[in-house]
């Protein structure tokens, strides 16, 4: 594969809901193996862009490619099986199942054959992997609890561990630290970085917490009113007058 080609390339994507233009002519490149950030005030179109990328709704115009393949017409599960997963702003886990079951069913369905779906769920190797990842996010001791009984922050960590269980190539995280207790945030940043370094997963992160995103991302894009305002390194963005105005409301 051509290494100069980005893993995800969003080219002039527009999306409107009726009269509301949520995304207008947005182009973003997410390079292989890096952490890329996406910021912007509330309602600036960040989640809409995520939804467009993972196939929740059709886009009005433009193109989205994943490793060179056009994906803007594929459906959600097909895109997920290509190796691109997203987590949700409102955490979504399987609430009546215990943590280990949540993990086991999150394995990759990429190369799953028909007979594979009838394999015993309590396969030792998969279970061990699940336990290691639960340990990685600090939920090992709660592994046998019903996941819906966990606290919001713990559910968020579980959702992250489930995504890792899938061994994705790219992970789109929608506000990974929202609602997480401040003392846990550092641990989460550390784990996100390790997931990126140790497992080689490309991360594309929406985040409102500036301290977090400035620490995490190598390159950040800022949206405002559905348009791409600026793209650059954390330092460049922090000193960009347009970005500051967008956040402080100088329009």
């Amino acid at each position, binding site marked *: 594969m051509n290494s100069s080609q980005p893993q995800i390339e969003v080219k002039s994507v527009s999306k409107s809901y009726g009269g509301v233009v949520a995304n207008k002519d947005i182009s973003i490149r997410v390079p292989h193996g890096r952490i890329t950030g996406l910021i912007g005030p509330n309602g600036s179109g960040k989640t809409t862009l995520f939804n467009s990328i993972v196939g929740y709704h059709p886009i009005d115009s433009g193109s989205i490619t994943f490793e060179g393949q056009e994906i803007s017409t594929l459906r*959600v599960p097909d895109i*997920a099986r290509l190796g691109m*997963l997203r987590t949700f702003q409102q955490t*979504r886990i399987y609430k009546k199942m215990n943590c280990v079951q949540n993990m086991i069913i999150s394995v990759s369905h990429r190369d799953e054959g028909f007979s594979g779906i009838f394999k015993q*769920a309590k396969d030792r190797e998969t279970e061990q992997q699940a336990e290691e990842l639960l340990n990685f996010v600090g939920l090992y*001791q709660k592994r046998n609890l019903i996941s819906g009984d966990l606290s919001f922050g713990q559910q968020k960590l579980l959702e992250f561990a489930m995504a890792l269980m899938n061994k994705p190539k790219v992970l789109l995280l929608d506000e990974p630290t929202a609602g997480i207790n401040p003392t846990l945030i550092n641990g989460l940043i550390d784990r996100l970085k390790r997931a990126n370094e140790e497992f080689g997963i490309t991360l594309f992160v929406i985040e409102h917490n500036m301290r977090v995103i400035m620490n995490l991302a190598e390159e950040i894009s800022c949206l405002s009113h559905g348009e791409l305002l600026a793209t650059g390194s954390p330092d460049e963005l922090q000193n960009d007058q347009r970005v500051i105005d967008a956040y402080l409301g100088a329009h």
Partner: protein
Amino acid sequence: MTSARKLDLKVYAGLILFGIITPILFPNYTSQVAVMWLMVLMAVTWDMTGGQMGYNSLGNVIFFGLGMYASAVVQISMFADVAKYTASFGAMYVEFTEVQYFTGLSLGIVVGGIVATLFALLIGPFMLGLRGPYFAIGTLGLAVAVAELIAGWGYVGAGSGISMPVYPGVAGESTFVWYILLGVTALLAHLFVRWLYSTQFGLAMNAIRDDEDKAEAMGIRTTRYKVLTWAASAFFLGMGGAIFGNMSGFIEPLEVAFPTATFGIFMVAMALLGGKGTLWGPVLGAILFHIVKEATWTYLLGWQWVALGAIIIINIVYFQQGILGWAQDKWPAAFGLTVDRGPEDQPTGDTRPEAAE
């Protein structure tokens, strides 16, 4: 062997023992208990989609009725002309030899299961695109429609039904045959779901129940799981219908083959009573429900529907998780829902101290 597995084996042993002893000690109750096994079969197969997958069908009687009709047509067509047979409203008497009868019956039961399965595979992709209450109403509508279509189809006797081939053996013996067939089918269905729920497939069903959008976002082929689950439940229910049709001796579309207001609702009520989405809840619910139903029919005649209605209302308003669901809430540790304490529970070889924060 895990304790859950040991307990399962004990329950199976107990039920099989009960199944063998009952017709010997209480031969007069054989047909009631045979119907109880049918109820168990219905609750267990309903729970596959309703309890484990979150798709509450009110139309599973379709598979029951289709199995019944498919079996009848197969059994008759092997030795007589179906159209002539049904047109004579039972006046045409066909003498089946034992070999003929049992060949037809065995083939009929299998074909009944297969026809129901094929129908589920055919309508599944469309019906299972409906969610929540829309699926419930949609399946109910479909059941009513199928019943009406059969009621207007002269080849299978339309609204006048079909008199089933008469059992060739000694009078009274047939009850035991239906008893055994229904009991064995219920047992096979339960062994099947017990295996299915232990596989990756079972977890996928639960994932669909808990959050279907999340399951799709994780790349699970949800439609495949939904349709296959419904088809599997249709297979067992179709066989149950085939056997029950023969047990009834006479089948017709509205009361016997597609009883949406009785069996169609009972199968939901039984699974809810015992605890939907659990392995043994539907079995427990079906047994209790049947006992209460038979008792009220005997001792509270005139009030039996009121009593059954009251049970369903109390169940749904105060007791939604059912008996086993309630037990699990009350004694979580007995169901394996525990928190580990202490470092000895960490997996060996883990040296990351920050991982346990």
